[in-house]
C-alpha cells in the first residue's frame, strides 16, 4: 500500500488558498534553500527534533534506543545522528516530548479520514485541502491518489509547489487539483544554484507549461533581504510572469521564526541571521514590480 510521509496537518489554515483549509505538509524537498524556515521538511525520511528544555531526565529515550545513539546530558537528550537509524523509538518513549518525531506515514485512506474532519468548514468557507511541503510533488504516487480521493468528494484542492518536478508529473496533478500556489524565488540560474542548490530552469519551464495548460496558478515570491530582493531578480520575476501571461504576484516577507528549529535538528543555520524585510524595503519591491505591470496581491486577495 502506498504511504505518504507527512510532517504536519494543519487545520484552520487561512493563507494557503481560498477559504478555510487544512494544509497537509508532505516531507521531502529537492531544494536546499539557504533561508529555509522549515528545515525539518527537507529530508524525505523521518527526523527527530530535540527540545531539551522539556527533558525530565528520566532516560526513557536512552533505554529505548537500540543503537546506543542517545544519551542524556546536562541540558537534556543528545543524539549521535551518525548512529541514529531514525527508528523513532526514543521519541515514542519520551513522556515529555523532549524528543519529537517529525514525519508520520499515512495511507491515503488515513489522510482522507483526518483531513475530511473539517469538511463542514470547507463547505461553509469555500475552503478545502492544500498540499504543501517540503515539496509535495516529491511524493507523486501518494499525492495523485490523495487528490483523486478528494476530487471524488468534490473537495477543493490546492498544490503549493516550487515547481521542481518533471513536467509529466505536474501535468498529471493539474488534471486533479483545482489550483496551484507556485513559488518563484530566484530567476538567474547561477543565483538559484547558489542559494537553493538547484537550477531555476525546470521551475520556470514548468510554470510556462502549467499556465499554458490552463490550470489556475497563483504565483508567490518570498522576499528574502540580500538574497532575492535585488533589482535584477525583481525585474526578472516581472519579466517571467509577463512572458507566462500572468499579471499578479503575492509577496511573502521572509521571517526568521523557524531558525530555532535548526538547533533542534543539530543543523547549522548557514546564513547566521537574516532580518525580516522592513516595510520600506517591501514597499520598494512592490513599487518596482508594479511599474513593470505586475499587480501585487495581498494575502487577503
Amino acid at each position, binding site marked *: 500500500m502506498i504511504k505518504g510521509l507527512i510532517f504536519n496537518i494543519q487545520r484552520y489554515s487561512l493563507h494557503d488558498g481560498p477559504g*478555510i483549509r487544512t494544509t497537509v505538509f508532505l516531507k521531502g524537498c529537492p531544494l536546499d534553500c539557504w533561508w529555509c524556515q*522549515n528545515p525539518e521538511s527537507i529530508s524525505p525520511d523521518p527526523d527527530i527534533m530535540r527540545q531539551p528544555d522539556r527533558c525530565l531526565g528520566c532516560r526513557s529515550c536512552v533505554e529505548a534506543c537500540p543503537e546506543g545513539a542517545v544519551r542524556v546530558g546536562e541540558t537534556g537528550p543528545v543524539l549521535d545522528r551518525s548512529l541514529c537509524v531514525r527508528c523513532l523509538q526514543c521519541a515514542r518513549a519520551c513522556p515529555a516530548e523532549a524528543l519529537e518525531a517529525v514525519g508520520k506515514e499515512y495511507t491515503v485512506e488515513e489522510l482522507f479520514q483526518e483531513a475530511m474532519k473539517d469538511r463542514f468548514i470547507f463547505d461553509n468557507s469555500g475552503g478545502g485541502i492544500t498540499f504543501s511541503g517540503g515539496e509535495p510533488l516529491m511524493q507523486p504516487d501518494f499525492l495523485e491518489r490523495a487528490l483523486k480521493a478528494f476530487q471524488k468528494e468534490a473537495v477543493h484542492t490546492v498544490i503549493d509547489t516550487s515547481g521542481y518536478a518533471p513536467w509529466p508529473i505536474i501535468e498529471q496533478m493539474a488534471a486533479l487539483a483545482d489550483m496551484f500556489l507556485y513559488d518563484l524565488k530566484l530567476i538567474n540560474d547561477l543565483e538559484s544554484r547558489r542559494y537553493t542548490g538547484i537550477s531555476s530552469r525546470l521551475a520556470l519551464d514548468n510554470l510556462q507549461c502549467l499556465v499554458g495548460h490552463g490550470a489556475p496558478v497563483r504565483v508567490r515570491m518570498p522576499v528574502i533581504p540580500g538574497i532575492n530582493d535585488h533589482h535584477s531578480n525583481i525585474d526578472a520575476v516581472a519579466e517571467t510572469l509577463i512572458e507566462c501571461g500572468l499579471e499578479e504576484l503575492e509577496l*511573502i516577507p521572509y521571517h526568521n521564526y523557524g531558525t530555532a528549529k535548526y538547533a533542534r535538528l543539530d543543523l547549522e543555520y548557514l546564513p547566521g541571521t537574516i532580518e525580516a524585510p522592513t516595510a520600506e524595503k517591501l514597499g520598494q519591491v512592490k513599487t518596482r514590480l508594479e511599474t513593470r505591470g505586475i499587480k501585487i496581491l495581498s494575502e487577503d486577495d
Partner: protein
Amino acid sequence: MGEEIRGMNERVRKLRQQSVNTEPTISAERAILVTEAYRRYEGKVSAPVLRALTFKHLMENKTICINDDELIVGERGTGPQAAPTYPELCCHTLDDLDVINNRKTISFKVSEEVKKIQDETIIPFWQGRSIRDKIFCRMSPEWLDCYEAGLFTEFMEQRAPGHTVAGDKIYQQGLLDMKEEIADHLAGLDLAGDPDAMARKDQLEAMSICADALITFAGRHAQKARELAAEENNFARKEELLQIAAVCDRVPAHAPGNFREALQYYWFVHLGVITELNTWDAFCPGRLDQHLEPFYYNDLERGSLTRDRARELLQCFWIKFNNQPAPPKVGITLQESGTYTDFANINLGGVKPDGSDGVNEVTYLLLEVIDEMRLLQPSSNVQVSKKSPDLFLKQAGEVIRKGWGQPSVFNAEAVIAELLAQGKSLVDARCGGASGCVETGAFGKESYILTGYFNLVKVLEITLNGGRNPADGKMLGLDTGSPDQLGSFDNLLDAFEKQLRYFIDIKIAGNQAIEKLYAEEMPAPFLSLIIDDCLKNGKDYNAGGARYNTNYVQGVGIGTITDCLAALKKHIYEEKNFTWDELSGLLRENFRGQETRRQYLINNTPHYGNDDNYADTIMQDVFKRFHRTVDGRKTVRGGTYRINMLPTTCHVYFGSVIGATPDGRPAGMPLSEGISPAQGVDLQGPTAVIKSASKMDHLLTGGTLLNMKFTPRVLSGKKGLESLIRLIRAYFILDGHHIQFNVIDAETLREAQKNPEQYRNLIVRVAGYSDYFNNLNEKLQNEIIARTAHELG
C-alpha cells in the same frame, strides 16, 4: 451607514471618565431605609405589601442624583459607583466590610460612618433574620457538608432570584396603564368564594403600590431637574435640565412617546428592579435594538432625532449601567463570581416575533456604541440567525477582534430550539435570547433561576475514593467501590452516575427549601409588574407568577472530567499502563517526584477538544448522565429543572477543592471552563474545538459557554475576519449555542512563557508560517510578545 463623526463628544467623555475613575463605595442609605420600613410595617401587613411598602419608602426617600451634563438620569446608590447593601438578604458583618474595603481586587471603600451605622443599626436588626442566615439555618447537615466540600454553590444565599430580562411590555404600557389592569383584576376577585383570592389581592395591591412608588421616584427626578435648572447659568444646560424634567414627568407613568423616553423609562425600571432586591445579573433590556427601532425611525421622520443624537443618548445610557457595580459579595459567592460586572447583557440582532431577520439600523448604531464606549458594563452579545446578513457579523467581528471581550456571539436558532424544547410558544421563543453569561430565556415572560454551579469533577473524585472526600477523609457520598473493584469502565461510569444522582438530590432538596423561603418571605412585587403573567395570575415572580418558570443547575468541568475518564479508560481498563494502586498513589501524592508519570498521562491521553471520538464520546456520555439526572424535575414554583454548562469563574474555585486528577492536572489547579477544552490540551486548532464541542447536544441545555483564544494576527486582515465569520456560521450550523473570542494580549503571552504547560495549544501566526508558542525560543517569544502588545495597542 453614513460618514458621521465617530467617537464620544465632550459630554460623553466626561461622564465616562467619571464612571470609570470613581472609586466604588458602600452606601448605607438603602440599608437604613429598608430597616426603617421593616420597623414600621413588619407584622402589620402581608409579605408582598411589606415588600411594596419598603420599595415605596425607598423610592420616596432615597437620594436623587443628577450628574453634571447627563441626559439619562437615576442612580441606584447616592451617586455613581455607590453600591447599596441588602441586609434583608445578606447582612454584612463588620469583618465582611473590612474584607470588602481591604481586598486587592473588587474592593469597595467603606467609610467609618457606614461601619458605625452597620454596627449600631443594621446588624442588631438583621442578624439572624436575613435570608442568608435563614438558609444556612434550614439546610440539612448533608447539604452543609457538600457545600463546604465545594460540590456545589448556592446562588440564593446572598442575592435574590433574578436572571431575568425585560420584554417589550414597557414600550407599550405606562405604569398607570398597568395600574388600571391591576384595578380590573382586583375588582374581579371572588374573596368569598375563591380561597386563593386573598393572596392575589395582597399581591396585586403590592404591585399597585410599587407602580405608584416608581412614578413618585421619577417625579422626584423631575423636581430635582427643575431645581437645578433654576440655579443653572449655562443656558444650554438649563434647557437640558428642563427636558429631563419633562421626560421624567411622562415616563414611567405613561408609555414612552419617543426614543429618549423609551431609554429613560427602561432605566427607571432597571433601577426599580435592582433597588427592590439584589437580583442576580441585575436586570436587562434584552432585545434593545428591536425595542428602540420604531421610536428611532419615528423620531427621525418627525425630525426630532438625528443619528448622532441617538448615539449620544445611547452612550449616556451605557454609562448608567457602568455606574452600578455588582453589589459586594462575600465568601464562596465572591470566589465563584469575582467581578464588578453585574451581567446585564444586551442582545443585538436575532429574529423578530414573526421570524424575520431582526437586524436593523439601531443594531449597527449599538455596535458602534459598544465599540466606542469600551465599558465593563453593560455586556453585549450578537444573536446570529441564518437570516442575519454577513454585514452584521462583519461589524460585530470588527469589534470582537479588537480584543476587549465584547460582544459574545449566540446562535439565534439554537436559542429558539432550546426554548421550544422546554415548551415555550414559538413567538415567545423568538422574543427570547441570552442573559447573564449565556442563559437562555423567554424575555419578559420567564422566571429562570440559576440555582448553583455543580462540580462534576468533584463527584468523580469522590467516586474514585469510594464516597469519601480525599481532602479530609469525610464520607460524603455513597460507597460504590474503588475503580479496580468496579472492574470495567462502564461500571465506573454507572458508579459515577449513582453518586451524581445522590448529590443532585441533596442540592435540589436544598433548592426547594430556599425557593419556598423566597416565595413566602421575599416576593418581588415591582419585578412582577414587568414580567408577564404575574399581573394576570396575581402571583409573584418568586412564587411562580411568570408565564414560564425554570430552574437551572450549571455543570462545571466537562472538559476536565472527560480527560480524567479518558485517562482511566485507556490506562487502567484498556491498556493497563497503570494499576489503580499506582495511579491513586500518584494522585494522593500530587505526582510528587513523579513528573515522568504525570507527563506520560498528559501526553498519552486523548483529550476533549481535538475532534477525537475516543474522548468526545466520553464527553457525550457524561453530558447525557448529567442531563438525565437533573432535567425534568419539578420546582416549588411549578417550573422545571434544566441544565446549563457555564462556569463564570467558578471553575477556579471548584479546582481549588480538588486534588490531583488522572488527566495529570495537579491538585488545586482550575478545572476546564464552560464547555471549552481543559487548559492547553486542544492541539488541533479552532475547527477541532468546534467539532468536539458540537458533539454535545446543546439544544438540551439552557446555555453552553465556549471560549476561544486567538492571537491578533490570526484575526487580522480581510481573510482573518471573513474566516472568523465562517467559523461562527459553521459552529452554529452544528447547533452550537454560544462562542466568545479572547484575543490574546501580551500579558497572556508572558504568562504562557512562564507556564508553558497551560498554554500548549497557543498558536502564534506569522506571515505564511505559524507555530505553537511553546515551540519558539525565548528570544522569539519575546519578539512576539512585543509585537502582540503593539498589535493590540
